[in-house]
């Protein structure tokens, strides 16, 4: 199979990359009608599969689950998830031929084998949905021409998709129709109805394309979301220990700090996050993050270039073919870092202390979010797509770190994200060696404001605020966040 994106002429590449339209709620006035009475069969019953299915059924749709024979016979978790919630469960052979819409919610890596098994069983003119376009765009999977191919991708973990729906709300969602597979023109009505069925239409929907979703998703997860949070966390912990800060305190500050800091990012964007610092600390964080941006920019660009050219997916698929040799090795290494092995100390850290004593992470997050966003937009991805794949998802990943540190974060995210995260982390650490030599405990471990009188230069502060607030990620962020003001705080601390 050839990389789909690379088969397109440049104008079509640009056209699909640039597809991003924030949809008006009036576009969803038809509700779930396009899917009413249609038979929906979900393949896979993990967190996304189960929770989306529960929502779709609660929206009045007909949902059942197709699982592999072994999963049913051995009563695996996916089988239990579906049957405990009173869904009809059957094998591919039993259920797929009856389906009007097949929703593929298996892990990325299984897509090729799942589609190869499912496609021949699908009836003429049925529809197939993905929540991630890797299989179509990077692996170049060809779907039968009579089948409609759509994407509905909620930008939150499955448990949140369910929780927000039952609260009467939803999570931001990205929808797309594959231009090569829309023979009857029913792609958009189906995608919209499916989105309404999960509650997504209440929290902001981005009309996108398979190409834009994949190229931005890969970029976000490798750089700011997983890669930089991992690099920044490990470097911060090691620095604190090196400088004599209590290891238990350092472990707690790093584990939970990233969640507390990005919670401010979620509500108020990059400038809202920096507003949590005192004026002198804000100026310092600004300067540090400017320096970080200059150091890391070439690495961000390299990741984007490799994603666009298909080099990244090619290398990763080679590792898949090699039994995940690199992935497993790197995963084991992550489990062995000093940060991972040091339990969070039994110390109280107040919410504000996480900002004041962890200025370095504020700088890392600003640098990472802005760089990822800028690099994506320079590559032809629209600001709306770039926002969701950078700033929006950062707090969600931070939450997984707060739960059980980095090893757990890497376990929860997809194998694709994990692979890219390790690539970034390995390249980023050496780049930051000189920078980290200069870092002392005023940036990480101790209160930056200690011993300072709090005064700043008016002109300098105004300039810093303007640069922060006028960044394009802030402009688009204000618009998109309006649609999700009611998002509940995720809190572990």
């Amino acid at each position, binding site marked *: 199979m050839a990389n789909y994106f690379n088969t397109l002429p440049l104008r079509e590449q640009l056209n699909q990359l640039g597809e991003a339209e924030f949809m008006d709620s009036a576009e969803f006035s038809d509700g779930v009608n396009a899917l009413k009475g249609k038979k929906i069969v979900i393949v896979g019953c993990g967190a996304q599969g189960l929770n989306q299915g*529960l929502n779709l059924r609660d*929206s009045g749709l007909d949902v059942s689950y197709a699982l592999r024979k072994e999963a049913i016979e051995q009563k695996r978790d996916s089988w239990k998830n579906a049957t*405990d919630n009173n869904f009809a469960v059957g094998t591919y052979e039993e259920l797929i031929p009856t389906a009007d819409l097949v929703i593929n919610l298996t892990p990325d890596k299984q897509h090729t084998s799942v589609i190869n098994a499912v496609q021949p069983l699908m009836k003429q003119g049925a529809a197939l949905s993905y929540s991630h376009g890797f299989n179509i765009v990077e692996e170049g999977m060809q779907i039968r021409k009579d089948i409609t191919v759509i994407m509905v991708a909620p930008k939150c973990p499955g448990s949140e998709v369910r*929780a927000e729906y*039952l*609260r009467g*709300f939803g999570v931001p969602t990205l929808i797309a129709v594959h231009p090569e597979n829309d023979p009857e023109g029913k792609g958009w009505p189906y995608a919209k109805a499916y989105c309404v069925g999960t509650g997504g239409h209440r929290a902001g929907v981005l009309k996108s394309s398979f190409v834009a979703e994949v190229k931005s998703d890969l970029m976000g997860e490798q750089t700011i979301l997983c890669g930089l949070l991992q690099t920044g966390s490990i470097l911060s912990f090691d620095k604190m220990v090196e400088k004599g800060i209590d290891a238990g305190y350092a472990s707690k500050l790093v584990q939970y700090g990233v969640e507390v800091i990005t919670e401010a990012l979620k509500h108020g964007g990059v400038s809202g996050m920096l507003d949590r610092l005192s004026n002198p600390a804000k100026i310092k964080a600004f300067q540090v993050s400017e320096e970080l941006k200059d150091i890391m920019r070439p690495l961000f660009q390299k990741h984007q270039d490799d994603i666009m050219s298909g080099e990244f997916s090619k290398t990763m698929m080679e590792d898949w073919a090699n039994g995940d040799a690199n992935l497993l090795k790197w995963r084991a290494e992550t489990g062995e870092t000093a940060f991972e092995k040091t339990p969070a100390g039994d110390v109280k850290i107040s919410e504000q202390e996480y900002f004041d004593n962890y200025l370095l992470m504020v700088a890392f997050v600003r640098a990472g979010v802005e760089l990822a966003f800028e690099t994506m937009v320079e590559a032809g991805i629209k600001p709306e797509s770039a926002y969701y794949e950078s700033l929006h998802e950062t707090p969600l990943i931070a939450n997984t770190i707060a*739960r059980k540190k980095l090893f757990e974060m890497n376990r929860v995210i997809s194998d694709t994200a994990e692979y890219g995260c390790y690539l970034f982390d390995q390249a980023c650490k050496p780049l930051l060696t000189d920078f980290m030599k200069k870092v002392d405990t005023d940036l990480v471990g101790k209160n930056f404001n200690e011993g300072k009188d709090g005064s700043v230069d008016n002109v300098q502060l105004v300039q810093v605020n303007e640069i922060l607030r006028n960044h394009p990620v802030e402009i688009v962020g204000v618009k998109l966040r309006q649609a999700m003001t*009611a998002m509940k705080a995720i809190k572990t601390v």
Partner: protein
Amino acid sequence: MKQPLVQIVQLNLQYADQVVLSDFNWTIYAGENWVIGGKSGTGKTSLAKTIAEDKHPAHVYYVSNWYQFTNLEGDRNFYYQQRYNKFQTNDTLTVYADLLHFGQKHGLDFADAEPILEALGFQNCKDTQLIELSSGEHKKLQLVQGLWLRPKLLIIDEPFTGLDQQSRVNLLDIFDKIAEMGTSLILVTNEENLPTCINRFAEIENGKLRVVEHPADFSKDARRNKKPIPYFLQQAPSFTNTSVVELRNVSVRYGDKVVLKNVNWKINAREKWLLQGPNGSGKSTLLSLLNGDHPQAYNADVWLFGAKRGSGESIWDIKEKVGIISPEMHWYFDQNATVWHTIASGFYDSIGWFLEVKYEEKKRIEQLLDFFDLLPYKNQLLRTLPLGKQRLALLARTIIKNPPLLILDEPCQGLDVAQTNHFNAVVDELCANGNTLIYVGHYESQIPSCIEHRLLLEKGEVVEEVTI
């Protein structure tokens, strides 16, 4: 000279800009067993928490009115329907594991917990996961821990809330026993039926302790002037079908555990039902089938408003016709909602407010705020108000759309006698206009007078169905 258990000298306590305790003095001696009562919002809970703060649990232990457990990953971001959705991973501890953990932490012998579990009718819950417990069962778990620990001073906030009658009788007995064995008690409550060991009474007045002779001397909240019910609630709700609820031979089980067994129940439009049963008898599960909250309704013979569940309706179609309140919904309600937003969300059945409210709806919100005397609090966060006021706001949310079916699951939990009577009078008046009612309440003295039918559940089975 007698050694005091706890001595508080010149304590000052502020909450935001509000003074709760000022120059507060109190000495508690061994052998004393106190009840702290009086008006709502005087700082009883703040005081109770402060006494226990930084004390060794074997010396002073505080049992809160509601304890928010976490799941195994430290997350407490739950939603109230979560216990009906099953997911293999991401589980909470079982009751047994939670108790074992508590026992290890405090060096207790599990054999000492067994009689308490039995007295509170809780021994069957050992394998139940924390997320699956009802509010009454959560209360029991917290009580079991405190009673098992037997500290020198045990402080319990609203010990009787949500308990069934038998458990309550047994609890009074346990209180007397542990008092005899040397534990002093502080119970924060306005209940009149108290353990015999109680020998001291006090309330908080203007931030200071006021000792009284008898609970009858507690200050009462000002009598409420009954206002006329808003006009929009005097209208008869419309029914499209005479059958509102019909359950035919409905069972619900989780694995081997049977929660409901062969339940038959038919409710016609405008009927008024009382649903009763001990904690854990399946009441909440039964009600969740009627509100679109339980996934097992899809495979059962459940008919709502004339349509079979799973025949193409959405849960929002059902919720539109139902006004519901339950202790669980209260505890899991949106932490960031103001009183106004809480009531507004009743129009859209959301937990918290997300949609634009229309002009006519805004007018109704104002009328109900006024009716429940909540106007001065309308912009305050719900969670910052005393429990009784929070309840009133949620009750306003429940009735604001004048729904054909009202499901009031222990609606008066946390309300005092006057507030309870007031609210039940409202229910009577509303229902006289034609709403169908399902009411859950453990105590006969606390139910509205319009009730005509009673369904009694025990261990998931209907054991009695009578017309009153």
